[in-house]
């Protein structure tokens, strides 16, 4: 295969990687906030359920979680595995895992806001939801952005774990080409792709951080 052919093929894999990346963020960022609320619930049972969830998600390898999500329905319920489910399983696995990490980041951010902010809002007549949306959350976003950036960059690299259930993202393809051609080139090209992807994402996050530097 020519180098251009390789690049064209890997670009297709890259699209899948970008898809995994985007879908994971779109679902796990809001789900993470929900999990954070659960983790901070006044109800002891709810709080502990979310605590255990987070602890399992963070305490076991993502690669193993992907296997469980993909093969679980088959081993446990004898549901036949369709081809389409591969990709869905990857998204489900990533979303569940990243939501747990994001939840802890949100929680840290929310807990770092001083009670004075809540009290000022209360005396001014804000409702609880208005206080969260208008006063607390914007400040939380600014504080957690550096940690979120870390996770997001890790996510780019983690998308390659989808190879474990043979989803045709870039790493899976690079691996296949490399062994077919007994060549390092596919890995090098894939590495460059990942690096560029990372660079774009990191620059975007940096731009966000700048946008939020108008207050302290």
């Amino acid at each position, binding site marked *: 295969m020519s180098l251009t052919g390789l690049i064209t093929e890997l670009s297709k894999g890259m699209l899948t990687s970008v898809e995994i990346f985007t879908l994971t963020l779109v679902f796990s960022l809001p789900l993470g906030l929900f999990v954070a609320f659960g983790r901070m619930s006044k109800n002891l049972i709810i709080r502990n359920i979310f605590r255990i969830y987070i602890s399992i998600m963070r305490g076991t390898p993502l690669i193993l979680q992907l296997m469980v999500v993909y093969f679980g329905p088959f081993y446990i319920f004898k549901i036949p595995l369709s081809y389409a489910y591969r990709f869905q399983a990857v998204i489900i696995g990533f979303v569940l895992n990243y939501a747990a990490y994001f939840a802890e980041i949100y929680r840290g951010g929310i807990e770092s806001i001083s009670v004075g*902010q809540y009290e000022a809002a209360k005396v*001014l007549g804000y409702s609880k939801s208005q206080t969260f949306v208008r006063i607390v959350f914007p400040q939380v976003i600014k504080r957690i952005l550096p940690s979120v950036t870390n996770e997001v960059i890790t996510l780019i690299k983690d998308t390659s774990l989808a190879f474990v259930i043979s989803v045709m993202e870039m790493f899976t393809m690079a691996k296949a080409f490399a062994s077919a051609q007994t060549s390092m080139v596919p890995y090098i090209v894939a590495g460059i792709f990942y690096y560029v992807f990372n660079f774009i994402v990191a620059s975007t996050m940096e731009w966000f951080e700048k946008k939020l530097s108008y207050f302290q």
Partner: protein
Amino acid sequence: MKLLEIKNLKKSFGDLNVIKDISLSVDQGEVLSIIGPSGSGKSTLLRCATLLETIDSGELVYVGEHAVKTDENGCAVYAPPQDLKRIQRYFGLVFQNFNLFPHFSVIRNVTDALITVQKKSKEEAYEIGRNFLRKMGLLDKENAYPYQLSGGQQQRVSIARALALNPKVLFFDEPTSALDPELTGEILRVIKDLAAEHMTMVIVTHEMSFARDVSNHVIFMDGGVIVEQGCPDQVINNPQNGRTKAFLSRFEN
């Protein structure tokens, strides 16, 4: 007319009785100062009055409307939420450490509650907001963010923010304690101006000469009770109670 009445207020944190049966009232246009040693319960009293703290028993009445009643068992019963929401609009609170919203510009700090809570139009809210900023001498700072202001300026913004909602009673909890000494004067002057306009205020302060100049009535608290009260000249210049005397002697020089 009585704007605020507190009757037999009791509040404890666990085993610690912080407010032991305090009653007081504030008339329209009156300035009440509360003085007393650290830990005597002044902030707690203010926080109970502004519904930041839940009281154990007693009554809290704003403009004739009960925010809190006491049932036959002596337990505090709060009015339903929609009533509390209305009663909440009768008072404002200025905090010791300002508690401005750091992500809002000065003008948004002052106007956001008008728009979000009182549902005023942006134009109307900004007009009100600018009026109060002008009054506080901060009109040129409306687009600044809190971190760009001095402590004194931040406190003036927080006073403008409270005044913009048009409260009937304004509470201050040590409004100058977080400020450098050279900045306390500007805040005390602002409060004196408000007193001259007959704004009803309840002020917890350690500034004795200020309390004497600005208030109609002074309460000396110690150990969760009112030890002595009266006109400022009487309480601050001629205290009768030994504890008041001991406390005030620390401020003489």
